[in-house]
């Protein structure tokens, strides 16, 4: 049914509809609406993010910090924290406003796949830049290019310790006694490409780690336009090194070979299908995406188009549970563009969105491990977790009420999930007092899912 498809386009692929958007999508055609979003970035989003700093600039701040005394360091630390809040509030507001929500979901997906996390302090200043410099531009190219760009970015080099890895037989290694750190090599194989059963072994991890020695962060001389990356040959473990049976003298060809490996296609197809179809990815859908991947040489636009063509993605409208990020963005899209009584529209409050994510346990760029945030219902819904969701629903409703605008919860429910809303939910919202109806909408099974 046309309107159910519009709902799926807006919710499974997108980030949840703004009021009235479902009708517009149905008019344009759900699939064309999605495909059109793949041909380039949302200029409005780019504009909102344009003023934010680069990784190179952040590294300059670090360099300054090293030289500073304790008091200055403390101030810089607080500045970094404030900057993080402002930066990610801007990201969230842009995401909430976008006319290309499928694209924004893909940004979040790939950023999560190539996770960097503020569990490592340096990432506080680098995560946003990583997204802007690596992930966003990477959506329009091949996975190999995206992967190489991520491998060269100071955020990834710092997060997974490759910046500190030194070949024991290299000049620097012999001089200092420092050696290999295999953290990044392992995660590159296990998480970023082949997958844990993709056909590599411990010797591949070690060889890849040796190949990667010398790829490090350029703190302090970042103004030379390197983006924060520098290759230090004096740290490089002399080769050649064999990865998956093939010999390499340097890292980039090996990384590209891993990106092109058939196990990578299957591994990443599985993750994509989990995001866009179901927690347990149906094998047929995985094969279809893996095929599109292979046939296109890992072209991300081709793969993103193939996802839209998956019949399984359209078949079961509420199959996935919304993560906290999904919930906060969807709620903001639904509510934040409501016109005030005087006709003005208040834009989304990115800082409030950020606080909500903190409360719900998904602060941006703070995944607990390099695996990133999980994408299964049972990782997000449990007895402890439901309280946070309910309290948050109530708080949002109260916040909305305090603006003096009486929400028309019935109309909003229709706008959010009209085509798939149950009679039970509709009746419950209609029967609730105004102070509770909006909370009930947000807490409804339909809104908690996508």
């Amino acid at each position, binding site marked *: 049914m046309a309107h159910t498809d519009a709902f799926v386009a807006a919710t499974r692929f997108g980030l949840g509809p703004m009021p009235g958007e479902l009708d517009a999508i149905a008019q344009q055609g759900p699939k064309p609406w999605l495909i059109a979003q793949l041909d380039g970035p949302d200029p409005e989003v780019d504009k909102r993010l344009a003023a934010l700093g680069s990784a190179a600039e952040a590294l300059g701040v670090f360099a300054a910090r090293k030289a500073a005394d304790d008091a200055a360091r403390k101030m810089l630390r607080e500045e970094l*924290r404030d900057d993080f809040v402002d930066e990610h509030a801007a990201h969230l507001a842009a995401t909430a406003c976008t006319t290309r929500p499928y694209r924004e979901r893909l940004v979040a997906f790939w950023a999560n796949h190539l996770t960097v996390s503020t569990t490592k302090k340096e990432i506080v200043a680098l995560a946003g830049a990583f997204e802007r410099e690596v992930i966003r531009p990477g959506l329009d190219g091949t996975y190999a290019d995206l992967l190489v760009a991520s491998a060269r970015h100071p955020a990834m080099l710092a997060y997974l*310790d490759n910046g500190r890895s030194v070949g024991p037989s290299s000049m620097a290694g012999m001089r200092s006694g420092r050696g290999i750190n295999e953290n990044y090599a392992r995660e590159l194989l296990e998480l970023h490409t082949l997958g844990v059963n993709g056909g590599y072994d411990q010797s591949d991890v070690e060889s890849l780690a040796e190949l990667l020695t010398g790829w490090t962060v350029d703190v302090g001389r970042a103004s030379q336009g390197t983006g924060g990356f520098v290759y230090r040959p004096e740290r490089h473990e002399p080769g050649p090194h064999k990865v998956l049976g093939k010999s390499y003298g340097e890292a980039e060809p090996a990384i590209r070979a891993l990106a092109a490996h058939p196990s990578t296609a299957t591994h990443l197809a599985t993750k994509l299908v989990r995001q866009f179809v179901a927690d347990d990815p149906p094998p047929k859908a995985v094969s279809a995406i893996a095929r599109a991947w292979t046939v296109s040489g890992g072209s991300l636009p081709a793969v993103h188009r193939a996802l839209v063509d998956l019949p399984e993605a359209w078949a079961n409208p509420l199959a996935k549970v919304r993560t906290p990020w999904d919930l906060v963005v969807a709620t903001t899209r639904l509510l934040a563009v409501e016109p005030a009584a005087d006709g003005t529209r208040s834009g989304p409050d990115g800082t409030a969105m950020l606080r909500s994510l903190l409360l719900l346990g998904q602060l941006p760029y703070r995944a607990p491990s390099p695996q990133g945030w999980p994408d299964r219902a049972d990782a997000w819904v449990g007895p402890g977790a439901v309280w946070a969701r309910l309290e948050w629903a109530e708080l949002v409703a109260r916040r909305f009420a305090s603006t003096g605008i009486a929400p028309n919860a019935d109309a909003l429910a229709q706008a959010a999930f009209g085509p798939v809303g149950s009679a039970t939910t509709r009746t419950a919202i209609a029967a609730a007092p105004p102070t509770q109806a909006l909370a009930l909408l947000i807490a409804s099974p339909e809104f908690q899912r996508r």
Partner: protein
Amino acid sequence: MDRRTFLGGLGTLAASASTGWAFAPRSAWAAGAGERRLALVILRGGLDGLAAVPVPGDRSWSDLRGDDGDDEVGRVRRPGEQAPPAPAPTPLDGPFALHPGLGALMPLWQARELAIVHAVGTAYASRSHFDGQNVLENGTARPFGAPTGWLGRALGAVDGEPWSMAAGRVVPLVLRGPATASSVDPDRAPRVNGELLARIGSLWHNDPLMGPALAEAIDTEARIGGLRDATPLPGGFDRMYGADAGLDGRGRDDDGEIRGSDLDGRRKRDDAGALFVGRALAATDGPRVAVTELGGWDTHTGQSATLSQRLPELARTLTDLREGLGAAWASTVVVVATEFGRTAHPNGSGGTDHGVGGAAFLAGGALAGGRVIADWPGLADRDLVDGRDLRPTTDLRSVLKGLLRDHLGVDAAHLERDVFPDSGGARPMDGLVRAA
């Protein structure tokens, strides 16, 4: 409407999750054994067993891990720099010692309420966190070998339907299974308008995912919600919206800020909620099995400093558990386990990489402790797995089988067939539990 009346009215929501175990042998939980408690502390990231429990008495030790036998693993010194004096590890049994960061556990050691299992491993040896943790929790010999956990399966066949809980937002894999398992925030009581909650309850009643989660959540609050500290740790909702935000119906204009501590990994005093978990286990209406976890053990770099902070947190988790349990400590066993140990040799960054064999800890008043349980394989390169990792000579499942059998009275055949399938090579370890 007071809480009890409200919850009574929602009684229909509190459905049990038990299914399909009608024919499993009922184990002897009740009748005296009903007082036994088990707590599991999962250390996520791969604790370096050789740092937590160094082995200075092994002839390869000083080549491997440090010149002065101190706790600084692979710390790279600049030329001419002297090593600062580091507190020495505390000698235990035989060649073993205890990292000074765990010094708070020495009274437990002396009271024979602490034991260490060294050179221990699961059936998994491929060094992936994801798969390793899955095996640690699922109790089979391979990753994703079961959609349930060994503890969930063990409890499913125990009389009296003891329920279990995890501190945190969701029920971890280890507790999933036929028996009732809940998850709970140890720090903060939820506050949702009662009437709204009733409406949401009706809305979720038939939802297969949300309905049971909410029912469990409400039931859990009724049973143990009151055991939290009266003055909760600052955090989350209270800091963001003010302590009374749930009651006066108003949001606040001066909403709280995101703090640096939210971003830079500084930890709360009681990350594992151990005090609350202990009290919950001791409560009449409370669970008899609880799981909590601590993260941050994946020490690839600069591990000396990291472990100096993390190990005291682990020690405090155990002492907090003891404090919360009170008199019930005497009938409790605590297991502390991690997915794998780490490389015997330090890496190039003052840390260690993923390994195989490691150390586990046992504690509790019911434990026959005061010893290191290890069939020590040695630390020469030829003794290491792939020339790099401590070789596990004890299967963690042997330890768990012994505890489940002797402490919780789980039927031995059930242990072999259902709780730890395909574990024929792991004989249940005897003598872990004190005679009653």
